[in-house]
């Protein structure tokens, strides 16, 4: 068994240990369950705790903990920070951003060093909150709109600005608590809410659990014992390592990928308008009147603001983290069903009359769960067949009966009517797509039967790629380009293994010989270190670097794939290594 596998198991065991400690030490008590259907059984996990843990297993995870005072939201974020990063609780406490309407940039983000400012020097001192890995914002909706904007750029681009300086917040995990509206709160705009990847409602514990809470030691008097009650189990590096393990090892099979597409698509779909731009007419103001799909069972007529592309990406990220936590190597559609309500509910806006109805009584999560389940039920019955028809459509292999079925399906499924049918139609009517597709197919067949000379076929692919990419009007261009890139990446994948010391010797020469500026920067930034991983991704080239430590003898693994550029990089590195010997 490789050490990488052992590392991974150890890390998972540590995460499970944290969950166990939180429960057994009664640090956060809650009764709600996250039910994950796996094959024929149901796995029950503590809902809030699991979602909060998942948030740390996702790079730059951002989580909203919504609920009334005293539910333990901030405490949960703090104790997880202690156990998952090993940071002392006092330090975590110091870095918490406690929001209030008068919070200024100077208190929250940064300020000039006063002593040096007196001598005319503008030196920015960044706040603990900005610098810390484990970020907590307490009562985020008490931030004024201006401060929301400041934080928006942190969440959106991972940068914060102060004066003329910019701080790049590279790796972090963020938890924000949110209280119900009161006199001191501000509304939070949809784009700001969209930056929070998941959100959970923290409700008061049920009576038996409250009984448990009453029986425990008074934390106000003693605080938490950092050796026994909230011990340091993991480190920041280990969390970052898990991010990479998840990214490297957890796959999202085509059917799961399609389910995400189908789910988000079904929430966005409308045969009349693009809802994201529907300013004057929406589902509760006449948009759906007399529409064929305006029925109680439909999903489309209940969504005012559809989820963004970011939501789709978050669904993928959090489902992958759940798969890893459960010890799976791929994302099953049921994992997506489990996390979807918490990725979506806070980003969606529902008509009030629907939300008020029984059995929702204003509970947005419940309504979101119900809608996700409806889409999943439909997907479970028809998803595979719809995907098959789409694939046949792209491959120009649709029969008359496929087309009849598609037309029929479009009368029953708004997603097919708005997203699938028009695309399939435009592909089948575009003669240029057919011409290009034939050429792509020819290349793929040559690769399949193994009758090719690598350099010739790569230059053939490159030529065809540039032809297709410069043709602005061809339908389904992304599909053709993706097929070609997939082919070229699988053809040119090379792995280089060398000692870190050897890399350090060739690094400067390599940078000199490489043409692309961003690539030069990438190679320049490779420094090594414990559990070091770095990734460079451009459409035409991908490089993945792993280095286990910063020792000169550590073996550095570099995977390179892509077209001509990838080959050139590979050959240059090999040549420089030969010269060393």
């Amino acid at each position, binding site marked *: 068994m490789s050490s990488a596998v052992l590392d991974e198991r150890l890390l998972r065991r540590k995460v499970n240990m944290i969950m166990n400690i939180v429960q057994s030490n009664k640090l956060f008590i809650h009764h709600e369950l996250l039910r994950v259907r796996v094959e024929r059984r149901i796995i029950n996990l503590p809902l809030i705790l699991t979602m909060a843990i998942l948030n740390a297993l996702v790079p730059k995870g951002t989580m909203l903990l919504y609920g009334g005072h005293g539910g333990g939201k901030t405490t949960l974020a703090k104790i997880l920070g202690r156990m998952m990063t090993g940071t002392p609780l006092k330090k975590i406490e110091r870095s918490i951003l406690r929001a209030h309407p008068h919070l200024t940039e100077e208190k929250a983000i940064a300020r000039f060093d006063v002593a040096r400012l007196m001598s005319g020097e503008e030196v920015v001192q960044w706040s603990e909150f900005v610098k810390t890995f484990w970020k907590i914002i307490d009562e985020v909706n008490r931030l004024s709109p201006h401060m929301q904007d400041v934080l928006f750029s942190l969440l959106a681009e991972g940068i914060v600005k102060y004066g003329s300086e910019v701080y790049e917040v590279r790796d972090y995990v963020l938890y924000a608590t949110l209280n119900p509206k009161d006199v001191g709160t501000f509304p939070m705009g949809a784009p700001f809410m969209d930056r929070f990847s998941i959100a959970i409602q923290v409700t008061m514990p049920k009576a038996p659990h409250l009984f448990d809470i009453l029986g425990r030691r008074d934390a106000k008097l003693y605080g938490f014992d950092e050796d026994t009650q909230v011990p340091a189990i993991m480190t920041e590096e280990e969390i970052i390592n898990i991010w990479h393990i998840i990214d490297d090892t957890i796959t999202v099979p085509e059917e799961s990928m399609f389910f995400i597409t189908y789910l988000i698509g079904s929430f966005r779909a409308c045969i009349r308008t693009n809802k994201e731009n529907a300013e004057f007419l929406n589902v509760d103001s006449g948009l759906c009147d*007399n*529409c*064929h*799909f305006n*029925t*109680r*069972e*439909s*999903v489309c007529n209940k969504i005012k603001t559809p989820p963004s592309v970011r939501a789709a990406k978050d669904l993928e990220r959090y489902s992958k983290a759940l798969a890893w936590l459960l010890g799976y190597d791929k994302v099953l559609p049921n994992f997506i069903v489990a996390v979807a309500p918490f990725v979506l509910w806070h980003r969606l806006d529902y008509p009030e009359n629907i939300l008020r109805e029984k059995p929702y009584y204003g509970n947005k999560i419940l309504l979101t769960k119900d809608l996700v389940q409806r889409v999943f039920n*439909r997907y479970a*019955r*028809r998803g595979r067949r719809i995907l098959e028809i789409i694939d046949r459509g792209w491959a120009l292999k649709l029969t008359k009966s496929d087309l*009849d*079925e598609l037309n*029929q*399906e479009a*009368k*029953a*499924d*708004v997603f097919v009517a708005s997203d699938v049918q028009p695309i399939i139609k435009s592909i089948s009517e575009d003669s240029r797509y057919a011409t290009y597709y034939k050429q792509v197919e020819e290349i793929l067949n040559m690769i399949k039967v193994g009758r090719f000379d690598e350099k010739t076929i790569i230059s053939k692919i490159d030529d065809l790629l540039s032809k297709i990419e410069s043709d602005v009007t061809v339908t389904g261009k992304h599909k053709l380009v993706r097929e070609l890139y997939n082919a070229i990446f699988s053809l040119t994948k090379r792995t280089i293994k060398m000692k870190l010391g050897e890399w350090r010797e060739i690094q400067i020469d390599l940078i000199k010989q490489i043409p692309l500026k961003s690539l030069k920067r990438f190679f320049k930034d490779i420094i090594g270190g414990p559990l070091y991983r770095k990734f460079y991704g451009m459409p035409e080239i991908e490089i993945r670097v792993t280095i286990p430590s910063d020792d000169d003898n550590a073996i550095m693994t570099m995977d390179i794939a892509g077209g001509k550029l990838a080959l050139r990089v590979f050959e240059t590195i090999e040549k420089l290594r030969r010269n060393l010997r």
Partner: protein
Amino acid sequence: MKGEKLSKDMLIEIARDMFNKALEDFFYPPIPEPRIIYDPKSSEGFYIDPENDWKTTLNVTLVPKGLTLDEIKKFLRFVSRHEIGHYIICPYDLVTSILIISAAKKVVGSYEIAMFIANFFADVIDDVERNGIFPGDPIILDAFSTRDLKNEYKKLSPLIKVLIRVKEILWTEINLSKISKDKRDMINKIN
């Protein structure tokens, strides 16, 4: 075995199953669960209500007598398809429904008669189109013929007789080429 005697509950259960199968046949359109009743005294039959969220009502006491279990299932599946067909095929949506009624009203003047005609027109379109999708499907006329037309045609009111005849003509005109010999014979018999 002919003349299957089924309990009320069994009949309702079969109707539910067959409605679900019909939903599957149409790739699960977003319409609600049907309202299935067993009420011999009710004037309700089989219908879908576009103005009430496309809710289908199936009064299973109208299942023809003397059928085998398989025939009962076939009948209920086909009736369910017919009703769902109104959502999928004609009138398809409320706007189309209103357009058909107003077109009829322009000719006959009375709203009530226009409604009647619009329903009949939608039935015909539904039957013809559905027959193209499910070639084995009987047309709605068969349902009537099973119970009413063979034995009780003479008891039908003149209006119903006229409308059935109108329906046959429309159906024949629209779908002449698809008519089987059996059906043609049946139409002739009714004439």
